[in-house]
């Protein structure tokens, strides 16, 4: 499900620019300034913040919680008087509350999985880049192989074997999403390694891991932030797909994918059950895509 935002290309271009410009920080600031000037990206960020806030705070403001059954209102269309603003499902649970809960779950999965993939990718890439030579060649060959393999199959196998807990879902997805991050970090590390401050640290007797963690990683903030922005939508899609197959988040917990998989078969009779979660999912993905495009343009102004 990768390639939604073409992050490999964006990040490589950015990393190249970082490597060529000695003042990496001002490059990132420049890009941020251009991003803020991009209206579509700015509106998208605003909508995303609103969705996140509403998903986190909203459930406390609604009259119904996501797992509470309203015996008087089963399979009902939106009804403002009763407080079912988006209708109810076959079990009489409030769709808005469920959608908010599902959004929350999708966001948490995306955040945790992205964090896992960042950690793995950074550590792997930094080690490969720092030690270089044969270690690097071997480690990067492994990444190339992994790139060629259909990773969704492995996620499914992992989920099947280790049960269907959301935690595993986070880790499993993150475990297979780190490849791009590793490539970028390796490239950056190779460049940073040549710099004087690393030489100075070495001369001062610092070991390789001290150098990696204290001197190289802090210089990777820019790429990591961008990588995360571009990875989150991919993971949201992956999670919703797995949940749609019944391999992801389980009842009574729910996620956008789970909700869609329950809504789809009954969409003719109870359309609100499909369209409510589908709308939120697509809205988030559209916004994230505009933010991603905005980032790409901000980082690579010659593209226009």
């Amino acid at each position, binding site marked *: *499900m*990768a*390639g*939604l935002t*073409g992050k490999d290309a964006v990040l490589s271009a950015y990393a190249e620019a970082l490597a060529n410009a000695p003042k990496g920080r001002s490059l990132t600031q420049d890009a941020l300034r251009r991003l803020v000037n991009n209206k579509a990206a700015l509106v998208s960020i605003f909508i995303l913040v609103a969705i996140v806030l509403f998903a986190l705070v909203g459930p406390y403001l609604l009259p119904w919680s996501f797992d509470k059954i309203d015996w008087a209102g089963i399979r009902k269309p939106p009804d403002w008087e009763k407080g079912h603003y988006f209708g109810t499902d076959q079990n009489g649970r409030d769709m808005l509350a469920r959608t908010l809960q599902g959004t929350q779950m999708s966001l948490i999965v995306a955040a945790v999985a992205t964090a896992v993939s960042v950690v793995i990718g950074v550590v792997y890439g930094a080690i490969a880049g720092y030690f270089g030579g044969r270690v690097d060649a071997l480690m990067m060959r492994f990444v190339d*192989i992994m*790139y*060629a*393999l*259909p990773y*969704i*199959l492995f996620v*499914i*196998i992992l989920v*099947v*074997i*280790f049960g269907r807990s959301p935690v595993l879902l986070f880790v499993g997805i993150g475990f297979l999403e780190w490849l791009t991050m590793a490539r970028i970090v390796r490239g950056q590390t190779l460049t940073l390694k040549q710099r004087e401050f690393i030489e100075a640290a070495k001369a001062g007797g610092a070991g390789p891991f001290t150098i990696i963690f204290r001197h190289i990683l802090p210089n990777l903030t820019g790429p990591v932030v961008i990588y995360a922005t571009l990875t989150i939508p991919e993971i949201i*899609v992956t999670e*919703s*797909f797995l949940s*749609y*197959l*019944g*391999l992801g988040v389980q009842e009574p917990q729910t996620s956008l994918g789970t909700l*869609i998989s329950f809504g*789809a078969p009954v*969409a*003719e009779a109870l359309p609100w059950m*499909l369209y409510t979660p*589908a709308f939120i*999912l*697509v809205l988030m*993905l*559209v916004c994230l*895509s505009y933010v991603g495009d905005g980032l790409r343009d901000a980082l690579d102004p010659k593209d226009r």
Partner: protein
Amino acid sequence: MLGYALRRVLSAIPIVFITIAVCFFILRLAPGGPFDGERALPPDVLRNLREYYNLDKPLPLQFVDYILGVLRGDFGPSMVMRDFSVARLISIGLPFTLMLGFAAFAIGTAAGLIAGALAAFYQNKWPDYLLVFVVLIPLVIPNFLMANLAQLVFGVYLRWLPVGGYQPGAILNLVMPVLILSMPHGARVARLTRGSMIEVLGTNYVRTARSKGLGTRLILARHAIKPALIPVVSYLGPGLSYLLTGSLVVEQVFALPGIGKYFITAALNRDYGLVLGTTILYVFIILALNLLVDIVYAWLDPKVRYR
């Protein structure tokens, strides 16, 4: 060129082997299995089952047996669909999945190339803006949702096309699955083609070609297309993997008899024999197609061969 191709083929063999090994051991060592039902089975039944499925020997021996079997085209028996061997199930599902995948690949690639090239040619005019917008749709709406929505609109509301299922010869049943599968692929190809074509049209060598008075058609056909295709072709490898994994979705939503459907059913039922067999097959197909793409790439970009 031939030597290059041969080198690439040889380097792919260990990858297949390692993948088989990793999947095999993960699945064998996993807790739980297809025989952990609601009721515990009597010990002797379990022993017979383990013997039948070759699970009683030491693990390394099982692995050797399995590899030898795979080399003969025998993937062992299915553990859930008891009367079928994995090879038999694959031989039913594979042709269908390949047909679905290649049809979507052909349609998506062709449409993407044409649309992308047109957009590049009319850069910043209305055909370009239209394409950039249209291409966004399949990229932001996940495939499974798109499939569901298409089912609703064309199958349920409009009743133009069947909602799902497939019998041999039912071409109409394939229209929606193939188009849905081809859309994200076509969109990515179109984006890439547009970008690389714009870049190539601005290069010095295209300017040289214009200075020679060759005419637009010849410049596009001889000078621009080949280099513009390089990034597109290098995408086709990963693109094929996305298509195959996308076929998981489409086969599931439209209830089509391909290996993707078998894979998911097997995964849900913990049918490890079938999971292993279909995974190996997927990996093999994807590596083979990637190899093909690499060789085409070497033909497009003469510099690659000398690395």
